[in-house]
C-alpha cells in the first residue's frame, strides 16, 4: 500500500488518492484526500492525517491545561485557557458539595490572576469547557517562570513517551509543567538552568516541523548525543510529585499517539 511520510501541505492540497480513511485535518473529496490545514501530512495503513503547525487550542475532554483565573460568579470561576472558549471551574469542585456562597469566600482559594493546572472534564458543542482540580497535582501553580507556546507544538515538546521534555528537565535541573493548551511553567533552583530550559523550549517551538530537532536541542543543552536515542523509562506514580505531573502529560501524549489513529477529528 502506498505510504506518505512527511509531506508539507497547505489547505486544498491533495495528499493522496484512493480508499484511505480520513483521520484528522483532512477531508475526502471524490477519490482524493485533501488537507484542510497547513502542516505535515502522513498517510498509511491507519489512514490519512495532517499534523497542524498553526491554530489555537481547541479544548478536549481529559486534557490537562494550565489556565488563568479571570473572573468569578457566585458559583464558579471563569478561567482563560488560551482557547476560543472560556472555561469554568465550579466552586463546588474546590470547596466540596456543601459549598455556600454566603459562608465560603471564593477569594480565599483563588483570585483573579492566579494560574491553575486543571483537567477538562466536560466539553461539547453546546457548552463551555468545565474544569476540575480534584486530581493529584492539579490546583494552583504557586511559582515559576511562565511561557506561552503554540498549542500545536506541545506534542513535539513532550516527545515520544516524554523523551524530549525529560531531556530538557534533566539537563537543566528544572521541572516543567506543560498544559496541552500551550501554557508552560518552569521551576528550578538555578536561574541559569531555568533560562536554558526556556531557550530549549523556544527552539522546539520554532523548529517543531524539522527533522533532527532532538540533536539540535541536545547540543543547545550541552548533552552528549549517542547516535541512537534511548527513551528513558517512564517513572512510576509512587515516585516524587514531579513525576506525577510529567506522568499526566506523558499519559496525554501516549493516549494521543494511540488515539491519533482512532479519533475522528483532531485539532
Amino acid at each position: 500500500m502506498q505510504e506518505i511520510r512527511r509531506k508539507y501541505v497547505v489547505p486544498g492540497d491533495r495528499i493522496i488518492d484512493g480508499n484511505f480513511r480520513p483521520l484528522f485535518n483532512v477531508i475526502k473529496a471524490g477519490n482524493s484526500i485533501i488537507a484542510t490545514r497547513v502542516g505535515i501530512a502522513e498517510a498509511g495503513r491507519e489512514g490519512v492525517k495532517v499534523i497542524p503547525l498553526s491554530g489555537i487550542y481547541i479544548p478536549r475532554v481529559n486534557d490537562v491545561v494550565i489556565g488563568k483565573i479571570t473572573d468569578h460568579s457566585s458559583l464558579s470561576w471563569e478561567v482563560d485557557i488560551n482557547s476560543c472558549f472560556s472555561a469554568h471551574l465550579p466552586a463546588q469542585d474546590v470547596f466540596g458539595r456543601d459549598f455556600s456562597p454566603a459562608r465560603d469566600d471564593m477569594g480565599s482559594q483563588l483570585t483573579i490572576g492566579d494560574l491553575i493546572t486543571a483537567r477538562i472534564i466536560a466539553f461539547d458543542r453546546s457548552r463551555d469547557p468545565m474544569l476540575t482540580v480534584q486530581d493529584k497535582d492539579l490546583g494552583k501553580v504557586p511559582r515559576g517562570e511562565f511561557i506561552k507556546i503554540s498549542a500545536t507544538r506541545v506534542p513535539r515538546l513532550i516527545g515520544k513517551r516524554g523523551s524530549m521534555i525529560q531531556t530538557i528537565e534533566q539537563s537543566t535541573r528544572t521541572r516543567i509543567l506543560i498544559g496541552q493548551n500551550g501554557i508552560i511553567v518552569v521551576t528550578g533552583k538555578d536561574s541559569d538552568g531555568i533560562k536554558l530550559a526556556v531557550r530549549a523550549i523556544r527552539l522546539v517551538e520554532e523548529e517543531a516541523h524539522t527533522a533532527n530537532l532532538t540533536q539540535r536541542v541536545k547540543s543547545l543543552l550541552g548533552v552528549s548525543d549517542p547516535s541512537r536515542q534511548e527513551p528513558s523509562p517512564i517513572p512510576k506514580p509512587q515516585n516524587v510529585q514531579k513525576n506525577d505531573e510529567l506522568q499526566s502529560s506523558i499519559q496525554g501524549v501516549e493516549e494521543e499517539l494511540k488515539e491519533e489513529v482512532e479519533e475522528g477529528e483532531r485539532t
Partner: protein
Amino acid sequence: MTQTRNLIDENGKRTDGRTTDELREIRITAGVVKNADGSAFIEFGMNKIVVAVYGPREVHPKHMALTDRCVLRCRYHMSPFSTDTRKNPAPSRREVEISKVMREALEPTLMLEDYPRAAIDVYVEVLQADGGSRCAGITAASVALADAGISMRDIVSACAAGKVDDKIVLDINDTEDKEGGADMPLAYMPHLEKVTLLQLDGILTEEEFNKCLDKAIKGCIMVYEVQRQALMQKYFGNESELREEQ
C-alpha cells in the same frame, strides 16, 4: 462607462507597460502582525494591504453567537492616506459593500461548523489602494486564515479581468479601472474549481463576458501560486524544496 481615450498603445502595451495577459507584480508575506492569530501582507501592483485574522475566539456580545457554527466577520477598511484624495476614516458605503462580498467570498471555503459558538474576525486594512484592492484583500485574507490554522476546504484566490480598448485584459490597474470599459473582480477556489465572488461594472457582450470569466480564472490560478509559496516560505522555509517526499 464608455472610454474616452486609448489605454493600449500600438505595441499592445498598457498604461503600465504590461501586455493584456500579464499580472502586476505580487508579493505576499505571511505572519506579519505579531498580535494576530494569522496575518498576511500583500503588495499587488501599488496596492499595499495588511490582513489580520483573530479567531476562532469568543463572541462579544454573547447573543450574537450561533449554536451550530462559527460567526465570520469581515471588515474592509481604507486608511485615510491610502487614496489619491484623503479619505475620511469613517466607513463609507463602498467599504460596507466590499466587506460583505469579501465575507461571502471567504465563507464557502471555511469549515465554520467546526467552531460552534465562536467567531472569526478578518480585518482587511488598505494602506495604499491601486485598483483591484478587493481582490488583493481576499487573496491576502485567505493566506491569513490559513496562517491562523482555521480549517478550510481550499484557498481562495482573487483576480479581476476587464475590458480596455475593446480588448479583454487581465488584472486591471487604477487608470483602467477609472477609464476603461468594464471591470470584473472574481474570487475562485483553485482545487474545487468554484467561483465565490463575482461582480461586474461596465458593459460586456455575452462573448466578452465569457472571455472575461476565463481570463479572471486564469489570473486566480496564477495568484494561487504566490499564496501557496507565501505559506510554504513561512512554515517550511528553505526546506520546502528538500523535504517533500512520497
